[in-house]
């Protein structure tokens, strides 16, 4: 694999849900590439398909058709047992800090879960106990608190626990799914700074999903704007922000609440 190979290549990806009375096309022929080390934003609202898209990229949902190539290998159509390398390489941070941590597990066990599963067959498994301490310190939590339960932490701290868990297997890609949307605005900055530091320190590829374009503008180099399952606009963030081409993008930019000082 050459150094120019994108870490992700998504081709003609489609996902249709046929549960309800009418089939819903959540993702409608999406194609794009993510260079290694890029900070990519995916912006769109509920129903835009962004959550379904990233779950497919993380191998947690099967596409209806199309291909996803991660580090040169296709991940579509594979059995779970063949995806251990994907699990080690791509991790998610979810939106709701209340439901993304098992309320009955101690924080140490939550963070160590990726280190105790069967994805380490054939490779060196890091020592869970010491890794937990390192990770907690890295995300700004007190390692002495590792035997506590999630409800004993605040929302911002719980997101840090979730980030520590995501970093445990030393992934190459971190996917943040509305990771700050459920936090108070005043707490957001801390968690965003943490993302920024970690991505820079460890050379991670960051895929940051949000409905808030101002957050994406701060965090990312490039952005995909999704609407009704399609990518309606894509490109470098400043260009999109200053010169939006698509009406939906313009609507998104106009909707960001601004501080009215006057």
């Amino acid at each position, binding site marked *: 694999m050459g150094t120019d190979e994108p870490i992700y290549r998504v081709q003609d990806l489609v996902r249709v849900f046929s549960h309800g009375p009418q089939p819903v096309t959540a993702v409608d022929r999406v194609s794009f590439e993510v260079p290694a080390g890029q900070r990519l934003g995916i912006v769109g609202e509920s129903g835009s398909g962004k959550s379904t898209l990233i*779950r497919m990229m*993380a191998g*947690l949902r099967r596409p209806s058709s199309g291909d996803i190539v991660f580090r040169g290998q296709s991940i579509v159509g594979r059995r779970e047992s063949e995806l*251990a390398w994907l*699990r*080690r390489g*791509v*991790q*998610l941070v*979810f*939106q*709701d800090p209340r*439901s*993304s*941590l*098992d*309320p*009955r*597990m101690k924080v140490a066990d*939550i963070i160590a*879960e*990726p280190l105790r*599963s*069967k*994805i380490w067959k054939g490779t060196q498994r890091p020592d869970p106990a010491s890794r937990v301490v390192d990770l907690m310190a890295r995300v700004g939590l007190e390692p002495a608190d590792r035997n506590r*339960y999630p*409800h*004993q932490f605040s929302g911002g701290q719980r997101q840090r626990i*979730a980030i520590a*868990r995501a970093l*445990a*297997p030393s992934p190459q890609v971190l996917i943040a799914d509305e990771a700050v949307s459920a936090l108070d605005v005043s707490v957001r900055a801390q968690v965003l700074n943490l993302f920024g530091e970690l991505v820079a320190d460890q050379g991670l590829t960051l895929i940051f999903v949000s409905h808030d374009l101002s957050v994406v503008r701060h965090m990312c180099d490039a952005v995909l704007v999704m609407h009704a399952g399609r990518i309606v606009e894509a490109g470098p963030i400043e260009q999109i922000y200053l010169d939006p081409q698509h009406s939906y993008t313009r609507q998104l930019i106009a909707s960001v609440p601004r501080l009215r000082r006057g």
Partner: protein
Amino acid sequence: MRRNPALLIGAAMVALVVVFALISAVWTPYNPTEVTPGRLLPPSTAHLMGTDGFGQDIASRVLVGARSCLLVGVVAVGIGALLGVPLGVTAAVNQHSWLGTVIMRATDIVYAFPALLLAIILAAARGSGSTVTAMTAIGIASIPAFARVSRGAALQVLSQDYIIAARSAGTTPGGIAWRHVLPNITPVVLVQASVSFGLAILAEAALSYLGLGTPPTTPTWGRMIYESQPYLYTNLNLALWPGLFIAIAVLGFNLLGDGLRELVDPTLQDVR
């Protein structure tokens, strides 16, 4: 006591029943099945709870009856939970496939059979009723309740983000069921267990009453109530004691279930 009164009161009541059962294994004031001429005697220092229509000492029979009560309750709840909970969790995990549907429809069918009917069928198959047929019948009849309740709770748990996180961490479906689903449905299962225990005791009483349960020679609280029927208007004593202890056992297990549920909930361990 203020923190968890249900647990303590429930435990005390259950302990009483357990103590009775244990004592009866080594000693009873009189032989519980010894017929004596002293029939229908009121409570006295000689017979603390009086005697019944055959002159048998009621207190001794109550002690021995505690054994059957616990045995039936534990076995029935045991069968119900050990079979019902895995069925419910499996149905939840396979919610969208045929397996989930088949499991729930099968439990619906069993649900439709009252324990009584099952006991009659089993008794007929064996030739006559016995403790084992009674326990088995009640146990099978408890399975659907556990399956339903487990499935509902498991579905709730499975919709949480931490389950997706577990998959992303590489945890197997079995690992997810064991490490995430079961601990989080425990409170619900405990409540169901305490309810089912109470129902099992009552069901056993009904079966004994109808002669479908334990053989006539074994005193059970249900049988004692059956035998007290002819004397209900004259010697309330005979029905009172077994009835009282059935009530204590059922209430005790219900409270214990509530108390245990609070105890195992980590979110309630904090006092700010």
